[in-house]
């Protein structure tokens, strides 16, 4: 095991106020099970799961209540034992509608012992282990929610030699991953070792930003005896160090091709929370039913890192943290750079809910957008090498073909451009709309063929 600094410098990026001090010294607290859980079928990237239960059914904790619907999809499990109160559409964090299962807990929290714990996992083959990960419904917990088992099954012509563990947590305010690394470094490392075993990856890199010295120390200790080409990579603190393609480049110098996936350059990136979920699934036989969410922001009375059941309503989560003080302008699922603004506290946590952030009115002003003054700051800030100013103008003019030619589909929606824009143009909003329209167009074109 060695410690290195990131050998390659990523392009662009910004330095937003980190505000991690609100929650970083708060140890993970376990929240009691709320009176009702709403478990969404769309907690991962890809097709939403298909509900397997109906109103009135009784379920046990860890029981599968949603089955994957397609290759890129994931299982969903009941996060508590109890009775199904309703099955129906509900908005997800991003505002899209998806089926959700409301469960009223029975107070016993009985597990369905379905998966066999495998403390001697190293004796198992990759296929069996990947099967366990799939059974447990593990999906990327950093935010995107890519089903982990899909990532672990690359086609034979795309061998993966490098496993990167993302502990950058570059989103301001969020500290859940940092707490996991500080409090449970051994389990995180076991999860990493399992992933490494599955992939047969020669190189393992655990990436942490240099503003988390305690997490670096804890992980170093946990990894001390690791054999082979294992390194802890200290990244310079800047946003978006945690973006997948940027992180791969910063560590390996490999550029994921435009439109491609990390496996195209022999890499796989998993977030530390996901590694922990893999460990829990394999070693303890526990499907993914809970996660740590950072509940933070100045209006939150007692910010902290909360271990909550998946499907916990935001209102209960906030109440557990002492409620909100003063006036609140925005509530965001996730962090301030890429999170989704919520109109109310009616939503519930999902596998991807890394944070719940409340902002006071002064911290979330509504800006009037002006004409682009061609200052070029967005161009400097864009980590993908795009010209956000030009794209946004093309998209405002609804010239989707031009925007496509200018590679709007490569935008990772990191928000750096809008963060720096002095004309305060809603650049990311333009990119999102444009990407959705072009994706639709492409799908239509495919269907015609």
């Amino acid at each position, binding site marked *: 095991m060695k410690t290195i600094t990131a050998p390659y410098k990523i*392009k662009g990026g*910004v330095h*937003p106020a980190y505000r991690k001090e609100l929650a970083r010294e708060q140890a993970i607290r376990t929240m009691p099970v709320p009176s009702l859980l709403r478990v969404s079928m769309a907690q991962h990237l890809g097709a939403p799961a298909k509900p397997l239960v109906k109103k009135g059914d009784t379920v046990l904790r860890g029981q599968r209540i949603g089955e994957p619907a397609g290759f890129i999809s994931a299982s969903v499990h009941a996060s508590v034992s109890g009775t199904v109160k309703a099955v129906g*559409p*509900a*908005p997800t964090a991003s*505002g899209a509608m998806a089926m*959700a299962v*409301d469960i009223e807990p029975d107070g016993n929290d009985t597990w369905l012992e379905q998966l066999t714990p495998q403390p001697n996992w190293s004796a198992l083959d990759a296929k069996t282990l990947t099967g366990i990960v799939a059974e447990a419904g593990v999906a990327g917990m950093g935010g995107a929610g890519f089903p982990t088992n899909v990532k672990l099954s690359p086609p034979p012509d795309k061998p993966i030699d490098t496993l990167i563990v993302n502990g950058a947590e570059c989103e301001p305010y969020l500290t859940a991953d940092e707490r996991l690394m500080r409090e449970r470094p051994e389990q995180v490392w076991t999860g990493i070792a399992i992933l490494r075993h599955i992939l047969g990856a020669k190189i393992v890199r655990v990436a942490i930003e240099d503003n988390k010295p305690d997490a670096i120390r804890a992980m170093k200790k946990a990894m001390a005896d690791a054999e082979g080409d294992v390194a802890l990579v200290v990244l310079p603190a800047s946003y978006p160090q945690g973006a997948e*393609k940027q992180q791969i*480049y910063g560590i390996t110098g490999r550029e994921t*091709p*435009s*439109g*491609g996936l990390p496996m195209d350059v022999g890499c796989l990136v998993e977030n530390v929370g996901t590694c922990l979920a893999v460990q829990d699934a394999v070693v303890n036989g526990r499907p993914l039913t809970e996660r740590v969410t950072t509940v933070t922001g100045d209006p939150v009375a007692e910010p902290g890192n909360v271990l909550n059941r998946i499907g916990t309503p935001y209102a209960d989560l906030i109440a557990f943290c002492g409620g909100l003080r003063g006036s*609140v302008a*925005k509530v*965001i699922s*996730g962090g*301030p*750079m*890429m*999170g989704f*603004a*919520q*109109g*109310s*506290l*009616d939503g519930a946590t999902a596998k991807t809910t890394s944070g719940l*952030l409340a*902002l006071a009115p002064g911290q979330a*002003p509504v*800006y009037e957008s*002006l*004409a682009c*003054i*061609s*200052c*070029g700051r*967005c*161009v*400097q800030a864009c980590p*993908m*090498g795009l*010209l956000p*100013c*030009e794209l946004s103008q093309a998209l405002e003019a609804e010239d989707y073909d031009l925007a496509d030619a200018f*590679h709007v589909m490569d935008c990772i*929606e990191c*928000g750096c451009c*809008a*963060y*720096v*824009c*002095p*004309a*305060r143009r809603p650049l*990311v*909003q333009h990119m*999102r709309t444009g990407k959705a329209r072009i994706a639709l167009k492409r799908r239509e074109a495919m269907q015609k063929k």
Partner: protein
Amino acid sequence: MTTSDDKTTLYTVSSSPHAHSGASAACLMFDVIVALMPALLAAVYFFGFDAIRLVAVCVASCVGAEALCRKAMGRPVKTALVDLSAVVTGLLLAFNLPPSLPSWMAVLGSVFAIGIAKQAFGGLGYNPFNPALAGRAFLLISFTGRMTAWHAARLPERWSFGGLTADALTGATPLGMVKEAVRAGDPLPVAMDGATTVRFLLGDMGGCIGEVSALALIVGGLYLLYRRCITWHVPVCYLGTAAVFSAIHWMVDPAAAMPPHFHLLTGGLMLGAWFMATDMVTTPVTTRGLIVFGIGCGVLTMTIRIVAGGIYPEGVSFAILLMNAITPLINRATRPRLFGQRRKA
């Protein structure tokens, strides 16, 4: 189950990011105004009341023209005024005028700068040409005589320092005098010895009110760099190219050419390189584009100054305006490489 339609929205819903650096167009413009203050002080010092008169007239008529145009076009007036860009245009236009220019001409120039060069194109952000330079070019073409009449700076005796007082030099611009001499085949009228260099650096010479003091302009430019309003690319490439160009000319033809520091310190070069060629709206957005822009300005300026016949001794304004015109092309040619797109083997 409830859906989002039948519940009240308590909090603002908008697209990410939910954080902003705080930068605004008005902040940037305010910094430019601050950065122009040393040069304004120098202008008042060297040209007295005329400097105050021209600055007041230009700023007032630019702001007035901006308000009237917005009103006439039925667009919001307030948003256009609070960005302070009209104030900047007024200051820069005034800085580009000779001290003796009548006020009514300054008003005309301001109206052209704001009304035609800026608002007719749609306002801040849509204008292809630097409005202040467009205003100056308009005046130069319309009133060539008045725009090139340099009266002796009204340096009151008591303001003189270090033995430097107004003399024959301030009656014309150094660039103009050199040009005249070269055309007439006379020996060069200005010797760039140490004392003259210091005088030129401070701004003790004839010229437009805001362009004379290279020192004040450099101080302001460094402030802009420090505040990250501009990057180093344009000023360094512009001044560097001009220096190299004139150095070559000087080495080839020392009898008829002035040394590089003469060219850097005289005329509108400092004002142009720090404040006109760095105008965000009319210059490229890419880093490589800014380098091309700076070099292009340098080459064109020196070409006009040295090569193009003795019609007009100064080249900065037209060089920058020409480069403004090809800025869209420069942007297109200097796109950054897309992440993940391999360089063609």
